[in-house]
């Protein structure tokens, strides 16, 4: 990294349903919270990046400025599927590295309401069949030539791992969701805070085998924001600001390289492996050094395969990793102590910033009941289908 970059302030709204607020309200709450937390104001910001997916063409960053301060700084509105929040963070990081900014604000926000199932098209029965589109299809192919639905696509990613590795099946995937629901009971910011038995997880309505309802993330609303600062400006901050700041030891964004099966089934593995490897090299750390990990558990099947992709377990050993309780908050490498996307929620644009907020909060020792004791190094991972993967590694400041 050209220069060290620090998270100076961070804030997130509780995730959930906000019928009486709009996305601008949510983003503003997160932005003002992060500025206050960092002891700075909008006038100190040199750049603003705002990530949202479903309102990507709304000029969300400028709408936020019109609520909190129109200072004329450049705004970058970004969208990158479920990696949108991580992309907003990286936009500010790149601006600071490039020397164009000392301080910047990254916001992620989404208001989804009860959107229900994402992707997977309704089938329109044409009166007269005519080939159209890149595949010359005469009707919608979802449900005929396999599935486009998210629970199904990620189910297949998990079952492919089960095909290649022993000791992985429905029960291992269900244990992931059991853990994350249990973790969420300690997080007041989580959309759901209810514990379930393994039997309840496995017995809830099947969405896409092996993902039951309790193994799928909900839709929801929420926002998160971070104020970032480069090392030159960092040096002039107060001791209190410096001691609460969290160092960004690695920031990586990758896309999916070509693999043979990629045109049929999104490959969520290779780009995650590449991002993780690059991030560990940037930070000069190993997976076993991590105090906690927030990873992209959009579905229970996804979390399990990312244990392997992020190197948290031995190659092929993700089934044993969950069976022996390693990713529980008192285990070898606590994973998703926030409750994860499955229970904390997944307002898409907010997720990649909220994960960084969660890790930073633990490194500051301010995570309350869910605090991972002695946390000094954490990793935040998101993946957006299409695909993009963001990995950030954060480090406790060490300044007291």
């Amino acid at each position, binding site marked *: 990294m050209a220069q060290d970059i620090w998270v100076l302030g961070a804030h997130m709204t509780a995730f959930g349903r906000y019928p009486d607020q709009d996305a601008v309200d949510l983003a503003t709450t997160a932005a003002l919270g992060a500025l206050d937390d960092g002891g700075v104001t909008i006038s100190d910001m040199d750049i603003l990046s705002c990530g949202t997916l479903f309102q990507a063409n709304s000029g969300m960053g400028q709408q936020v400025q019109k609520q909190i301060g129109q200072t004329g700084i450049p705004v970058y509105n970004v969208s990158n599927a479920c990696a949108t929040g991580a992309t907003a963070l990286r936009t500010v990081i790149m601006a600071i590295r490039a020397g164009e900014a000392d301080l910047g604000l990254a916001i992620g926000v989404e208001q989804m309401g009860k959107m229900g199932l994402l992707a997977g098209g309704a089938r329109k029965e044409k009166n007269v069949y005519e080939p159209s589109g*890149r595949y010359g299809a005469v009707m919608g192919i979802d*449900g005929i030539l396999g599935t486009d639905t998210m629970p199904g696509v990620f189910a297949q990613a998990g079952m492919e791992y089960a095909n290649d590795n022993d000791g992985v099946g429905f029960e291992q995937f269900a244990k992931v969701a059991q853990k994350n629901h249990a973790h969420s009971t300690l997080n007041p910011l989580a959309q759901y805070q209810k514990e379930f038995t393994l039997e309840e997880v496995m017995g809830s309505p099947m969405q896409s085998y*092996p993902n039951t309802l309790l193994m799928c993330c909900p839709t929801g609303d929420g926002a998160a924001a971070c104020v970032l600062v480069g090392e030159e400006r960092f040096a002039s901050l107060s001791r209190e600001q410096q001691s609460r700041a969290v160092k960004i030891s690695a920031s990586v964004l990758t896309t999916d390289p070509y693999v*043979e099966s990629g045109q049929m089934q999104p490959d969520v593995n290779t780009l995650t492996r590449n991002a993780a490897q690059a991030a560990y090299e940037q930070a000069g750390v190993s997976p076993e050094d991590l105090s906690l990990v927030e990873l992209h558990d959009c579905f229970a099947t996804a979390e399990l395969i990312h244990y392997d992709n992020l190197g948290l377990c031995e190659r092929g050993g993700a089934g044993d990793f969950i069976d022996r309780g390693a990713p529980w908050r008192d285990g070898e490498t606590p994973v998703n102590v926030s409750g994860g996307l499955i229970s904390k929620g997944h307002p898409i644009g907010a997720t990649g910033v909220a994960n960084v907020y969660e890790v930073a909060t633990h490194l500051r020792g301010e995570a309350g009941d869910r605090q991972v004791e002695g946390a000094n190094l954490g990793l935040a991972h998101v993946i957006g289908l299409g695909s993009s993967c963001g990995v950030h590694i954060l480090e406790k400041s060490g300044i007291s």
Partner: protein
Amino acid sequence: MQIPLVDYLVLDNGPYLQANECEGCGARFFGRRNACAKCGGREFNSVRVSDTGTLRTFSIVYRAAPTIPTPYVSAIVQTDDGTSVRSNLINVAPDPGKITLGMKVKLDTYVVGTDDDGQEAVAFGYAPA
């Protein structure tokens, strides 16, 4: 009269699946191509894909858009000549106890709909071999 659901399903002298194979590196793609995602090559040949293969992964889908009948079995098949194909697994109960990863499968076709002119749309799937 029949029409294939997608243009890479060939009914005449078939049925079989037809891929665009990169002249440079041999990577195979279904559907219209601009260039090769593996090597950037721009020349392609049409090739016939093997009708048989193995089940690489699957999901039994219960939740879908309202017009789509459920449950159905979504699958990724690896054909015997190494090409990945996505389709439904057909002629098998939507029951995890009846579906085995790695099982042998074979291409099959069926009529999936009829339009106002009486034209039948033909889809493909893979059935246990």
